[in-house]
Structures are given as structure tokens and as C-alpha cells.
């Protein structure tokens, strides 16, 4: 995001207004999971008793659960006792000193994405001033937001500063024992984001974790909670187009959204965690539970995701449409190249009257990638005159990859109107030849055809993100056609 980098650049030339205070003890919990470890995490974060109890209840639930196997993905068994569940932020001494110490392949990708040098350092976790200076950028943004009563801070800060809000909403959309990975997250979540938009406020800027420096390196068990009060609006951006390395192979995040009457939440994700090498070695396992509750009448929640990273993706951003006339949307582009596996989709649960939902899913498989759309639309008996439109398109590049579609539809009210469209296409040699004949080389032709295929999703992304996402797709699919 060049604009952010520019801002950082501008600010680094100024004197410190706030300085940087770091005072975290450098310690790490021993590997393994137990009630003691959870108590340790909670104590480290200076959490109130109720939150510790909440974590412990989740943990006890988790112990009785089994890892789900229904997803169309294969991976080595995860040893949950070998994972380290708490690591304090790294000190400067542990960080790379300069970009010279970073994997050249990652640097090459940064180049291709056109990421400015300073930003490359920040993404790669290099210990330089710019990293700390972005704290003051964040502070500036936060002051602006505070004037409107918008709260945008880390989850840990919210626990300290706004415990009543956290306590009121935490686990109301994704219960702590919702599923295996959500329960694990509830027990051990490290940090994440907290957003509160007061009644009637239209948040004037896209909220991005990018502006929250302490969002870096909290990826493993991230917890996000967004609350939009009556008549408010917020657009939230998660992730970053730059490839993110992480030493932690297992990621299990939970995101909860709550939209009250007439509120709108737009949640956009670009997920580009390390996918592993061409053989799939070392990639991230990304098991995410994202759910939004359209609590109030005429509320609206839109999920837009561009998933290009991770070795294994297991993710179903969903909407519970409880308020009458509420609207849920899901727009997704998922790419699996090389040995990547993605099992992703959405759930739309219609409870209120005249609720409507739209699902547009674009799956792209290349190399030996396996891409699965799994979606469920449920119309409950109470959902009079509900509507759903689903469109699931798959594109295959090459002949060693796979595309799978599992749409589940469950209608308990006969007044529902359901539409479902699906297609599978192979990127045609005739399309590529046509482009070639017009002077466009094969690599550009593929990215053009794929971007055209994804257009309906990209146009839902905020402008700047959309441009980056296109570029990202290009890089992700590089070399996928002979």
C-alpha cells in the first residue's frame, strides 16, 4: 500500500511525538497445552478472571472434540502438544538486521508486487526505525477515529480498556465451543483487533490491521471482534498482498462481526500466507472461523476474500441473518497452485423475514492444486420470503489440478426463492492463442483471463486493494501455464 508507505515516509522525517515504548519481557511458554499454560497466557496479558474462566471453558470443551475430517484437504497430523502457545514479541536482537538476511525468493516477490523498500523491511520483520515509526502513524489515525468515538485497537487493549464491550459480545457469534479450531482459538488466542463503531457513525476510513503495528506477529491464534451499532458503517481490511512468512505452521483465527439495526460491515481479506514450496513443504495451515451476525433489521454484512496463500485453507465466512430484511454477501476468489489445497465457502443462515443473501465464488486451480467450494444456505421456517443467489465458478489451469463444488441447500419455508448457478471452465488454449495472436504473451494472457474471471469479486474490494489483488493473482499463478 504505497499511500501508507508515503505516510510513513513523511512521518519518519518528523521528530518523535510519542516515542516508542517497549517493555515486554522476552519470554516464551514451554510447548504444549494445559490449564497451566492457559492461565500463564491470561496472566501475561493481565486479563480479568472472567476471561480466564472463559478460556478454560473453551479448553475443556476442546479436549472433548475431535479434529474435523470432512474437509476435502489432506495434511500431516498436527501435534498440538508440540506447539508453543505463547511467545512474547521478538526483540530487535532476534530480528533480521537487514533485508540481506531475508530469503531472496521472498524479496523477488516483493519486487514483483512493487512494494517499496521501507515497507519490505517492515513486512519481513527487519528491525529498523520505520517499523517503529509506523506506530505514530497508527496513533495519528487513532486520534482521528477517537473524535468520532470509534474504537480501533488490539484485542488485548480492548480487554483492558473496554472490558464491558468485550464481555458483552465475545463468543456471541462464534461460541467458544463452536468447532475444534474455534475452541482451540478461544482457549489460547494471542491477540487480534477490536473495532467498535458507535451509533450513526460512518467510519471515514478503511480500517486496516496494517495501521496497527502490534498486529504483526500475532497471526497464529488471532481473535477479531467488530461491533457496528445502529445505523453505523465500517469497512475493514485484513491482511496484506505481500507474502507473509510465519514460523508457526498452524493458524486458527476467529472473527466475529455484529451488525445492529441498519448497520453495515464490509470485511475484506487478502490472505497470502506462505503456501509452501512447489512440493508443498513448509506452508501454513489456515483454519479460520469467521462469522457475522446481522442482529438488527436491515443490517448488512459483506465478506470479500482473496485467498492465494497457505498450504491448506479451511475457511467459511458466514452470515446469520437474524434481523428482518437483513442482507448477507460473500464474494470469494480462491487460488490453489502447486500443492495448495483450499476448502472454502460460506454459510448463509436465514432466520429473519425477507432476508437475502448473495454468494459469488470463484475458484482457480493450477499446478496440482485442489480447490473446493463448500457452501450452505439454510432457510429456517421463520424466514418468510427469503432469497438467495449463489454462483460458483471454477477455473482449471492445466490438467493435474482439481475443482470441487459442494453446495448444500436446506429450505424450511416454501416462500423462499433460491437460485444457484455453477460452472467449470478450463482456461482455453484457444483463449490464450487468441491473446497471443494479438501480441499478448502467454503469462499476461493468463493473468488477463483469470482477472476477467474474478472481476465480479474484485469490484467488491476497496479500490486500492483491488489493484493489489490483481497483481497478486498474477504473481501467484506465475509459471502455471507452460
Amino acid at each position, binding site marked *: 500500500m504505497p499511500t501508507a508507505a508515503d505516510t510513513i515516509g513523511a512521518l519518519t522525517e518528523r521528530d518523535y511525538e510519542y516515542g516508542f515504548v517497549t517493555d515486554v519481557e522476552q519470554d516464551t511458554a514451554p510447548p504444549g497445552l494445559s490449564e497451566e499454560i492457559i492461565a500463564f497466557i491470561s496472566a501475561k496479558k493481565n486479563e480479568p478472571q472472567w476471561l480466564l474462566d472463559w478460556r478454560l471453558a473453551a479448553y475443556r470443551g476442546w479436549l472433548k472434540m475431535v479434529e474435523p475430517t470432512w474437509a476435502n484437504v489432506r495434511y500431516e497430523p498436527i501435534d498440538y502438544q508440540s506447539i508453543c502457545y505463547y511467545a512474547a514479541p521478538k526483540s530487535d536482537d532476534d530480528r533480521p538486521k537487514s533485508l540481506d538476511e531475508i530469503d531472496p525468493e521472498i524479496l523477488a516477490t516483493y519486487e514483483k508486487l512493487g512494494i517499496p523498500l521501507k515497507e519490505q523491511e517492515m513486512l519481513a520483520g527487519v528491525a529498523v526505525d520505520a517499523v517503529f515509526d509506523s506506530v505514530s502513524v497508527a496513533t495519528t489515525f487513532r486520534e482521528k477515529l477517537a473524535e468520532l468515538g470509534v474504537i480501533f485497537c488490539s484485542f488485548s487493549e480492548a480487554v483492558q480498556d473496554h472490558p464491558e464491550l468485550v464481555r458483552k459480545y465475545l463468543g456471541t457469534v462464534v461460541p467458544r465451543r463452536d468447532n475444534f479450531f474455534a475452541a482451540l482459538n478461544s482457549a489460547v488466542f494471542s491477540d487480534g483487533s477490536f473495532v467498535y463503531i458507535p451509533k450513526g457513525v460512518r467510519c471515514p476510513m478503511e480500517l486496516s490491521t496494517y495501521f496497527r503495528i502490534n498486529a504483526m506477529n500475532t497471526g497464529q491464534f488471532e481473535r477479531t471482534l467488530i461491533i457496528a451499532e445502529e445505523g453505523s458503517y465500517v469497512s475493514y481490511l485484513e491482511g496484506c498482498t505481500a507474502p507473509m512468512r510465519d514460523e508457526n505452521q498452524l493458524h486458527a483465527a476467529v472473527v466475529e462481526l455484529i451488525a445492529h439495526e441498519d448497520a453495515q460491515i464490509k470485511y475484506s481479506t487478502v490472505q497470502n500466507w506462505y503456501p509452501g514450496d512447489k512440493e508443498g513443504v513448509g506452508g501454513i495451515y489456515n483454519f479460520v472461523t469467521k462469522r457475522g451476525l446481522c442482529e438488527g433489521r436491515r443490517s448488512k454484512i459483506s465478506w470479500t476474500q482473496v485467498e492465494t496463500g497457505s498450504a491448506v485453507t479451511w475457511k467459511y465466512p458466514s452470515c446469520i441473518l437474524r434481523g428482518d430484511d437483513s442482507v448477507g454477501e460473500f464474494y470469494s476468489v480462491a487460488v490453489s497452485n502447486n500443492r495448495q489445497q483450499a476448502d472454502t465457502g460460506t454459510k448463509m443462515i436465514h432466520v429473519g423475514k425477507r432476508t437475502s443473501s448473495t454468494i459469488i465464488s470463484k475458484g482457480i486451480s493450477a499446478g496440482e492444486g485442489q480447490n473446493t467450494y463448500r457452501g450452505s444456505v439454510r432457510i429456517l421456517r421463520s424466514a418468510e420470503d427469503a432469497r438467495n443467489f449463489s454462483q460458483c465458478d471454477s477455473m482449471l489451469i492445466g490438467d493435474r489440478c482439481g475443482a470441487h463444488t459442494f453446495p448444500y441447500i436446506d429450505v424450511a419455508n416454501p416462500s423462499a426463492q433460491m437460485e444457484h448457478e455453477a460452472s467449470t471452465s478450463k482456461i*482455453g*488454449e*484457444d*483463449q490464450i*492463442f*487468441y*491473446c*497471443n*495472436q*494479438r*501480441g*499478448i*504473451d*502467454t503469462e*499476461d494472457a493468463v493473468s*488477463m*483471463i483469470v*482477472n*476477467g*474471471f*474474478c*472481476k*465480479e469479486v474484485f469490484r467488491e474490494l476497496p479500490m486500492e486493494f483491488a489493484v493489489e489483488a490483481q497483481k497478486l493473482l498474477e504473481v501467484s499463478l506465475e509459471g502455471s501455464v507452460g
Partner: protein
Amino acid sequence: MLRVRDLHARVEQQEILKGVDLEVKAGEVHAVMGPNGSGKSTLAQVLAGREDYDVTAGSLELFGEDLAEMAPEERAHAGLFLAFQYPVEIPGVGNSYFLKAALNAIRKARGENELDAMDFLQLLRERAELVAVDEALLRRPVNEGFSGGEKKRNEILQMAVLEPRLAVLDETDSGLDIDALKTVAAGVNALRSEDRAFVVITHYQRLLNYIVPDHVHVLLDGRIVRSGGSELALELEEKGYAGLTNGSSGG
């Protein structure tokens, strides 16, 4: 400009072209006529460099360069354009976006400056007017949902924007009603110039009433069996291809 010598080509193990000779000079319009299955479209695809078409013998030279050594996009950069018999749909990709990418890829390969959006738009409007293409067509995705006539007109528009030195029109008249045919022909005629050549591949003489060729070649069973002036097309109209098989001079 184009020199084809004793060209043999096969598709899926089947020999389709069995020794084609053709020479096209700048400024000329050549018509290649022949019945279905005579190898007309194969000739077009081979010229453009389609992968599955194997040249087994003979030579192809474009602007003095050996075509066999050139990838399809390099041929395009050199100034070869093929108007497809069946233009391909590219869903979601805007027609004008596609054309801009194509033009700039060609300009870049030639070491020329790429056009920015404003300059391109101006050129596009100009060219669209020249070949009488409705501007609404420019805003739609490439060929997606186009009628047969719209697709063919779009090919002519692309040709007008890319300004090739040699344009091969592969059955551009097929499936067109008479009005569309006239529009397409007028577009081609508007682009005729001293330094540009055309190879017009067609099944019917009809198109040649509107695009009057300098030379007409008859392709039968993978060989050019007769060559002559525009009057040959009329003779064909009268006698049919069957009337030519006897006493043909070979090519």
C-alpha cells in the same frame, strides 16, 4: 512480404496442406478460395503459429524472417494479424482494455512508447468510427454475448487499431447477412494501403464483390490449383469448384 514455399502441414497426424506456394507483396489483396476441408483455415492457423499445427516441410517467410522460429505473439509484433473465423470470448475482460493491452504489447516489442489511457481512447474512437463500430461494443467484455456479426466487426476493429502489415481474414464473411457483410468489407477497404497486404480466405465469391482482390487462388485438397486475377472468382461462381479440378495447372 509473405513468402510461402511448398508448405506441408499436419493436424493430429493428418496431412492437410500438401505443398502450398503463395507470395504476397505489400499493397496487394489476395483471395484464397476453396471448399470446406480444402485447408483454408489450416493455412490461416499455420501462418499465425497455432501450436497443434505442425509444419512438416516447406518454408514460411514473413518480412524476410523465418516464421517457424517465431512464437505467435512475435508474429503479431512483426505485424501479422489474423481475423478469426470463430473469435474467442474472454469473459470479464473489457474489449477496450484487451485492445489496449494488445496494442501496447506490440508497441513495447517494437521499442515504441506505450499509449496512455487518454491517447488510446482517442485512437480507439477514431478507429471505431473508421470501421463503423458502435462504441457500446467497446465497453463490453471481449466477444462475450456478441452476435456473429458483432464478433466479426470486432475483429475488423481490432485490425484497425493494431494496424498490421499483413492481415489474414479467415472466413470473415461466414454467417454475415448482406448489411453486415458490407460493413465489414467497407472496414477492410478503408484499411487498404500501399504498405499493407491482405489475405482474404473465403468460401464464397460474394465477399469479393465488395473487397476486390488483386489475385485469386483456389485451394483444393491442400494445394493451390489455380491462380489468377479477380475474374477467377467469377469463373468459380459460375462453374463451382468441381469445374476446376480438371485441367488445373497446379500451383
